[in-house]
């Protein structure tokens, strides 16, 4: 059937099962937006900035597991997507971004609103395309969705010159995709899986380190089965939170720079690390040469480039986490190991570390402690909310003091560390899950980076709860200045912070404020009652509060610093453990 390029694009999106698209119009995408005007099955959510559209698509993808989609115009519209693409790329999130482009005959002429977006985004996408002919459009869209959602997922950009969307062509939906150079490997190698299982059987002090790959491959069930079968304590990276229940007896919480004492000590004193869907980035390993010095390392990842990129690996297993874990569980079930007896001493030691230094802060009945706010959000939502975060202290406290029991409920920019991510991501999450309680735990700095999206949330009646931990500072940078730069607070004092209650009200949202500890719970309760519009909760918190424990940059992860109550840590001696 003959159709315009714009109509073909929308038909393709429907064939891919897309229900919501985030976007922003402009000159060269007018044809697409004109088709959307009458479209019933597919809804475009107009954001107030293209960066917001991409983060929203990203948030949508993280909670739903489906591909998130954004459509924006050329030039500045396209360049505004770069941060969103880089964010999704670092965290392996499947999104497809369509950018308008000047007509093919004008490409390269420095035409109005022209940018070489394919060139610009080459290093921050999984792949990108420029469609030069309307006859290639349907195939390209099909390939874009396929590449974004398979293997190690990631963002794909499709650049659409105006004459391609305005032109007409035959709509033929390709039945299948075949890309010569792209064949992700899902099944793990049998021999490698057996080796990995053998390492688990041999290990006396094993630790499972679970990352975002567990969530991306929907392998939480398998991870839980493996951990509970073999009685191995589990720590999660920031991206892995929710991949294993945070309230499970075997959970040690997050590891790394702001990880728990228990997780970092267990990793450093382990004799086996089973890395599952993790890429051992610097925030997790600390000084790499002293990372888990006595441990053998098994690494399971679908992306071969993640293996041995930063640290030595003894047993690599390339494959999809879910497939590989299933294979390993089968292997391990056949062993006659008495797991409980074997692990008893090691788990006791882990418990001891947990009791020795749990995550902690000094409660103050007068001044609001930011950790207290997060704890109360956890209690009042019964741990069942979708939590988005910005980046910095707010992100770390949200990671530490909320326990994530289920996957796809924790949305945070882990790799790129994008301030301004959380709020638009919350919009995407709420669009995907209208009935969920969605929070954005924010700082007063980062919320201002995409605050314009309040309009998007208001007009779509999204009851997102934004908890601003307002310390009038760029807190995490300030913390580094306090600890490592002699308290020289260069440009981290925000000085003028807007009245967030009034900002919210100006947009037609609800604004609430808590200035004392006693006001925290009533404010959260009030916010939870609001069902048809976003709410800003301005928590005026103690500006001096810091995130602890902390591993200074370049240190090993057992070289943690703690709050004011400094104590000498006991050196762990593995010979103390009596293995039955």
């Amino acid at each position: 059937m003959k159709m315009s390029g714009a109509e073909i694009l929308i038909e393709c999106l429907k064939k891919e099962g897309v229900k919501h698209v985030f976007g922003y119009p402009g000159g060269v995408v007018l044809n697409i937006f004109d088709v959307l005007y009458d479209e019933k099955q597919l809804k475009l959510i107009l954001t107030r900035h293209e960066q917001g559209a991409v983060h929203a698509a990203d948030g949508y993808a993280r909670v739903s597991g489906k591909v998130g989609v954004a459509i924006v115009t050329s030039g500045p519209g396209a360049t505004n997507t770069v941060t969103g693409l880089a964010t999704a790329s670092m965290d392996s999130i499947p999104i497809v971004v369509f950018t308008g482009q000047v007509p093919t005959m004008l490409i390269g002429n420095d035409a109005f609103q022209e940018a070489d977006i394919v060139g610009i985004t080459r290093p921050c996408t999984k792949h990108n395309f420029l469609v030069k002919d309307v006859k290639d459009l349907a195939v390209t869209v099909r390939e874009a969705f396929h590449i974004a959602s398979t293997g190690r997922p990631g963002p794909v950009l499709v650049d659409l010159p105006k004459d391609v969307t305005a032109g007409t062509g035959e709509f033929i939906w390709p039945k299948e995709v075949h890309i010569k150079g792209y064949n992700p490997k899902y099944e793990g190698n049998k021999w490698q899986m057996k080796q990995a299982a053998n390492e688990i059987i041999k290990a006396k002090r094993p630790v499972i380190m679970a990352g975002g790959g567990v969530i991306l491959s929907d392998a939480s069930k398998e991870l839980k089965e493996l951990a509970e079968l073999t009685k191995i304590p589990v720590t999660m990276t920031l991206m892995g939170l929710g991949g294993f229940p945070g309230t499970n007896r075997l959970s040690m919480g997050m590891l790394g720079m702001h990880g728990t004492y228990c997780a970092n000590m267990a990793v450093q004193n382990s004799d086996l690390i089973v890395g599952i869907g993790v890429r051992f980035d610097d925030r997790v390993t600390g000084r790499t040469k002293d990372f888990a010095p006595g441990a053998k390392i098994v690494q399971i990842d679908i992306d071969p480039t993640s293996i041995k990129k930063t640290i030595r690996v003894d047993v690599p297993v390339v494959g999809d986490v879910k497939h590989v874990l299933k294979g390993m569980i089968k292997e391990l079930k056949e062993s006659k190991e008495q797991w409980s007896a074997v692990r008893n001493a090691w788990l006791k030691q882990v418990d001891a570390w947990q009791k020795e230094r749990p995550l902690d802060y000094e409660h103050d009945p007068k001044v609001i402690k930011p950790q207290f706010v997060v704890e109360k959000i956890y209690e009042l939502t019964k741990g069942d909310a979708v939590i988005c975060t910005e980046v910095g202290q707010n992100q770390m406290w949200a990671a530490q003091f909320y326990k994530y029991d289920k996957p796809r409920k924790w949305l945070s920019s882990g790799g790129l560390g994008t301030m301004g991510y959380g709020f638009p991501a919350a919009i995407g999450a709420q669009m995907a899950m209208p009935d969920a309680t969605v929070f954005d735990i924010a700082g007063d700095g980062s919320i201002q980076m995409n605050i314009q999206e309040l309009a998007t949330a208001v007009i779509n009646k999204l009851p997102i709860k934004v908890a601003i931990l307002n310390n009038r500072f760029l807190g995490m940078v300030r913390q580094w200045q306090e600890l490592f730069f002699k308290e020289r607070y260069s440009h981290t004092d925000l000085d003028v912070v807007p009245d967030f209650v009034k900002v919210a009200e100006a947009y037609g949202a609800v604004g609430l404020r808590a200035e004392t500890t006693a006001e925290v719970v009533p404010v959260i309760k009030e916010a939870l009652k609001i069902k048809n519009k976003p709410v800003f909760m301005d928590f005026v918190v103690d500006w001096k509060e810091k995130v602890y424990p902390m591993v200074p940059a370049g240190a090993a992860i057992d070289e943690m610093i703690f709050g004011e109550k400094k104590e000498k840590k006991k050196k762990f001696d593995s010979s103390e453990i009596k293995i039955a």
Partner: protein
Amino acid sequence: MKHTISVLVENKFGVLARVAGLFSGRGFNIESLSVGETIDPNISSMTIITRGDDLIIEQITKQLNKLVDVIKVSDLMEVEHVEREMVLVKVSPRREDRIEVLKIAEIFRGRIIDSGHSTFTIETTGDEGKISAFIELIKPFGIKEFVRTGKVAIAREGVKKP
């Protein structure tokens, strides 16, 4: 250590930029790169000479494999292979040296492809050893211009690396 990596890629615009970007973005160095169409006009082949320890070379080949437009990557260091490079040298010897230059060219099976009043342009092909020996010998006579193609390499059939 120096490695010769042979890469088959889709013959599409932007592919060279993807490969080059992969090297520059990760701080790997390209010593030489040559690209050309294969028998199948949809596929091009690249020969890349790069340097690095085993871990770096492993990353390079994995990263190349990860590019969607890359069809096949082979590290030729793992197999017996032959490498060739072509150079064009424009020499301007003194009148009394002209015969000697021609002799050197002959020894290296070079061909004179252009000759002027005061210059010769010599074409020669060979592996790294031959090319550098040739250049060493010709240098004293005054090289005016010098271009090289970059290496191309191919695995040998039926020969196992000892």
